[in-house]
């Protein structure tokens, strides 16, 4: 587990300060999307080894949601961005 996360608002902090929600890649389907699309979104997750994007919340710090890009094999952290900023490109 990556143990030090560089929060864009608070600086370098230990992972204990954060809550990890999980994969940041699934995009919420439209309300009336098919049951299959909703089933995929709610239940199905890929289980990759290597570079992943996750939603982390800095609960003990600025309480902002962050997108952490890290490697779950080497524990290297590549980028930490505020989820609001990270989402601007996707929206």
């Amino acid at each position, binding site marked *: 587990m990556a143990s030090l996360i560089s929060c864009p608002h608070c600086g370098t*902090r230990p992972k204990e300060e954060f809550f990890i929600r999980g994969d940041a890649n699934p995009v919420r389907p439209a309300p009336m999307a098919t049951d299959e699309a909703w089933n995929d979104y709610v239940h199905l997750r890929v289980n990759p080894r290597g570079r992943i994007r996750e939603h982390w919340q800095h609960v*003990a710090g600025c309480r902002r949601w962050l997108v952490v890009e890290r490697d779950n094999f080497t524990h290297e952290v590549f980028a930490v961005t505020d989820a609001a900023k990270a989402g601007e490109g996707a929206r």
Partner: protein
Amino acid sequence: MAYDYQAVHALDGMIGAIAERRANHLSVHRTMAIAMVLAGPGQTAEAAGILVSNGEFEARFSGPGEWLVLSQVHAPETLAAELSVRLGGFAFVVDQSHGRVVLTLSGPDAARILANGIAVDLHADAFPVGRAANVLCNHLSLNLVRTGDQSFDLVVMRSFAGALVDDLKVMARSHDLSVDFATR
């Protein structure tokens, strides 16, 4: 039916039995005007400007567009209303005067004591006077600010104050620490 409400400090009966002052001292403030200010969307700069331009408020960084505001000038009962008027539509204000407890840790070992539970670099170069941050102290989240070379202010949720004082006593076991209320 009329009620008589009595303000009871979260640490009443837990500390203050012994009035002593050792090299390092943890001073617990009895009353402090505290409010949480959250800037409206896209109005962080405006809200920050109003808070900073006014010497009556001490705004401590809590998150982006979010500050813990303390005041020595205003009373706990009036700070939130005063801030609401000054900030107008730029920010939301929530009174925290009775929701949080302010503690001042001072002494030559203050940074060393805190380092036993807080994983933030507290060297004066990395955490200068005036810098504030929400940090995790053991298992408690608190707002930490450096008020001097050898003094820090800790603002913690009221119900965690007792646990924090116990934690600080353990963290300071190899240092000389006394705990007391700031005013008796």
